[in-house]
């Protein structure tokens, strides 16, 4: 709030100056019977200015602008006490007495004059902040019309002050025709005060303990305020100023009604205080739990927090939570309160087990409000004497799947009311959400790790492939497209013998890192073998012997090893379960798929592998085309599940065989893309095209 210190200081200065002025005049008037015409009205005017100035001075003070209820109430009581101390103190010192004239009563002694001035001063200084404090309480929960009622009440008060001065009559409810205006004004004021007095919803939100203690305090307060008018203001203030007298009188009505209604409201709230307290606690703890769940992903901590909160709110004796273990698939105790985890884990209690089964099967909460010492569930009582009632609620996850059970027990029979059971269920639900959250996070972490692994595998795979085609008198083009997940295609070139080019193409079964490892191993093995050997059959047999023991049982590698003697124009190759070689013969203008016998590396320990493996030898001519590929090409699949197939590949090679080798490759790529029509490849695709010169 913006404060403006200079006018406030001026206001305070006015209050003191004018206060002293009226005081001085009162003294003067009393001692010298001085009569100054119209002084009464001027005096009232000055007192009104004092009142307004003081209000202006104090309204922004921190003291009267607290939103905390307790602080406001404390301040109110302090002000009230101060008022009484001040009044009673001066009464003792000055022992005032008044002449019993009609109204206003005139002071009898000089001390009485001083006394009436001091009390008026106190009335202004202390009652204004008291009213401001009540205003804070009224606005604690503002309704649409609160401000209107406040304005009306203030208006009625000002009117009452005005009529008191004009008619020089006290504000009393009277049927006397003479006092009709005063009665009307007072009646109207009281109505508005009563309306305002019902604005005490701040009481609702106090805790049960506060409601009890404040109720007791309020009884005293009502009594003290009721006496306040007679003890303090009555004739005293009126003797000095009618405006202030009317103000204190009306304020007294208002304060009395407000405290009286407040006290009654406390009384009415007492029976429901416990329930209200409990509901507040529930809402707060669920709110808190919601926040914890959003921020905490450690399952052990979460279940601990949930059991603690359950215990706090439903005031259970033993509380524990059982959660399905991912590994074993059995329920296991995850967190306990007041009871040893190991004790629960090692215990084999038939009745308890039965309750668990019941909750899991019905997917509903279950409770026994009174466990008899004999009969059903007596087992539980035999195990723990202080379990008189027990309740259990399922942790229901997505698709109504039971993720665990939340248990609570109490040591008194019929200890669980429906609210307790509802709360237990609410906590179980929250726990289920928490568990699912944790699982989701875990899964996404696993997913992320797998993806990183795949990326590494792809990088390794790409680095294992030759970075450039060898410099030989043949036209060579290669194409590799890796699929998202499945990988394992591999090819390599060797030039260890004059006029010979070695080509290896293969496909490692499996995916990710394991495929990349096997690929690296295969590359190493073949690289060393080709240094000495040229015969594809011997290379493959040796490879099978070396790799068969290191390969996982489920894994195998298809390999094709070719040796091209470009001087003699002879291709010799052997195929270990790999796709055939496509050979386009210029002379015959047709494509042949050459598929000699042979089984994949890793399928057999040796004898069958060697028995099946055949060497194929063909001679080729200038402008013949050879294509080596993996099943990612022949098995590329369109949306309907149809495969690209070898025939299509053969046809494209035949059609574009006259073109440069780059063009042949582009045509194959275009044909595959056209065939897939946006479908993803589900396997790596590798193609090596050799055009003979």
């Amino acid at each position, binding site marked *: 709030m913006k404060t403006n210190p200079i006018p406030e200081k001026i206001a305070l200065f006015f209050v003191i100056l004018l206060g002293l002025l009226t005081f001085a005049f009162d003294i003067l008037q009393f001692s010298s019977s001085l009569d100054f015409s119209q002084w009464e009205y001027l005096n009232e005017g000055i007192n009104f200015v004092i009142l307004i100035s003081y209000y202006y001075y104090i309204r922004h003070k921190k003291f009267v602008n607290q939103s905390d209820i307790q602080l406001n109430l404390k301040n109110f009581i302090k002000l009230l006490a101060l008022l009484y101390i001040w009044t009673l103190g001066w009464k003792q010192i000055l022992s005032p007495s008044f002449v019993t004239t009609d109204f206003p009563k005139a002071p009898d002694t000089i001390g009485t004059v001083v006394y009436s001035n001091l009390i008026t001063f106190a009335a202004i200084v202390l009652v204004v902040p008291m009213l401001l404090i009540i205003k804070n309480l009224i606005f604690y929960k503002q309704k649409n019309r609160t401000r209107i009622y406040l304005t009306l009440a203030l208006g009625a008060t000002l009117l009452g002050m005005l009529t008191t001065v004009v008619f020089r009559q006290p504000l009393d409810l009277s049927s006397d025709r003479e006092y009709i205006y005063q009665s009307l004004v007072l009646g109207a004021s009281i109505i508005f005060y009563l309306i305002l007095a019902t604005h005490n919803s701040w009481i609702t939100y106090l805790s049960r303990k506060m409601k009890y203690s404040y109720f007791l305090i309020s009884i005293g307060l009502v009594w003290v305020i009721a006496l306040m008018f007679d003890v303090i203001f009555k004739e005293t203030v009126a003797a000095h100023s009618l405006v202030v007298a009317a103000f204190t009188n009306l304020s007294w009505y208002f304060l009395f009604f407000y405290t009286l209604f407040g006290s009654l409201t406390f009384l009415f709230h007492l029976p429901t205080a416990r329930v209200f307290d409990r509901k507040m606690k529930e809402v707060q703890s669920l709110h808190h739990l919601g926040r914890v769940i959003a921020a905490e992903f450690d399952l052990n901590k979460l279940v601990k927090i949930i059991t603690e909160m359950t215990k706090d709110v439903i005031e259970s004796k033993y509380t524990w939570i059982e959660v399905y273990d991912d590994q074993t698939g059995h329920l296991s105790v995850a967190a306990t309160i007041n009871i040893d985890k190991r004790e629960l884990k090692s215990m084999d209690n038939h009745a308890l087990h039965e309750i668990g089964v019941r909750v899991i099967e019905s997917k509903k909460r279950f409770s026994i409000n009174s466990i008899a010492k004999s009969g059903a569930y007596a087992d539980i009582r035999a195990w723990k004497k202080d379990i008189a009632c027990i309740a259990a609620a399922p942790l229901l996850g997505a698709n109504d799947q039971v993720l665990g059970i939340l248990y609570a027990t109490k040591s008194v029979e019929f200890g669980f009311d429906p609210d307790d059971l509802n709360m237990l269920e609410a906590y179980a639900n929250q726990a289920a959400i928490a568990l699912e959250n944790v699982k989701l996070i875990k899964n996404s972490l696993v997913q992320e790790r797998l993806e990183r692994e795949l990326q590494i595998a792809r990088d390794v795979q790409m680095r294992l492939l030759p970075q450039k085609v060898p410099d030989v008198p043949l036209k060579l083009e290669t194409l590799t497209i890796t699929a998202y997940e499945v990988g394992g295609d591999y090819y390599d070139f060797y030039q260890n013998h004059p006029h010979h080019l070695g080509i290896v193409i293969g496909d490692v079964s499996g995916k990710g890192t394991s495929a990349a490892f096997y690929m690296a191993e295969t590359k190493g093995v073949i690289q060393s073998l080709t240094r000495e050997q040229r015969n594809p059959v011997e290379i493959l047999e040796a490879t099978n012997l070396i790799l068969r023991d290191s390969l996982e049982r489920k894994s195998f590698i298809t390999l094709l090893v070719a040796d091209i003697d470009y001087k003699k124009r002879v291709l010799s190759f052997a195929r270990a379960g790999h*796709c055939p070689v496509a050979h386009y013969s210029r002379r015959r203008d047709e494509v042949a798929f050459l598929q000699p016998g042979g089984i994949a590396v890793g399928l057999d320990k040796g004898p069958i592998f060697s*028995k099946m493996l055949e060497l194929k030898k063909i001679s080729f001519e200038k402008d013949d085309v050879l294509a080596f590929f993996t099943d990612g090409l022949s098995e590329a699949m369109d949306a309907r599940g149809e495969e690209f197939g070898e025939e299509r590949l053969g046809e494209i090679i035949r059609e574009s065989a006259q073109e440069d080798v780059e063009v042949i490759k582009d045509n194959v790529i275009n044909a595959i893309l056209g065939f897939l029509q946006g479908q993803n490849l589900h*396997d790596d695709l590798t193609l090596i095209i050799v055009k003979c010169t």
Partner: protein
Amino acid sequence: MSGFEVRRHDNGDVSILHLKGFLDAHTAPQFEHALQELVSENRVKIVVSMSDLDYISSAGLGVFMGFIEEIREKDGDIKLSSMSEKVFKVFDLLGFPSLYEIFDDESAALAKFNETN
């Protein structure tokens, strides 16, 4: 990707597994599970019928490799039957016919088991 389904049918001491749909890296664990179950029950005479199998990938073929050794050690076998031409081509390319007995239909595979009994 289309689904995959394994159905088991016991015929005397021979168990028949009917495969249906796509057997690839994603669905291979289902097939693996079915075989594992048979092995754990010590039912090692197994016919895998593939009349409704649309596609098999290397991961699917790997499942056979993973079990065959153990099954044969227990005097059992996996016999394959009723493959479509497309599926047979995959098996053939890899050289499976030299390692596994492949039959045109289940009854032939069953007869082969019963004959050796």
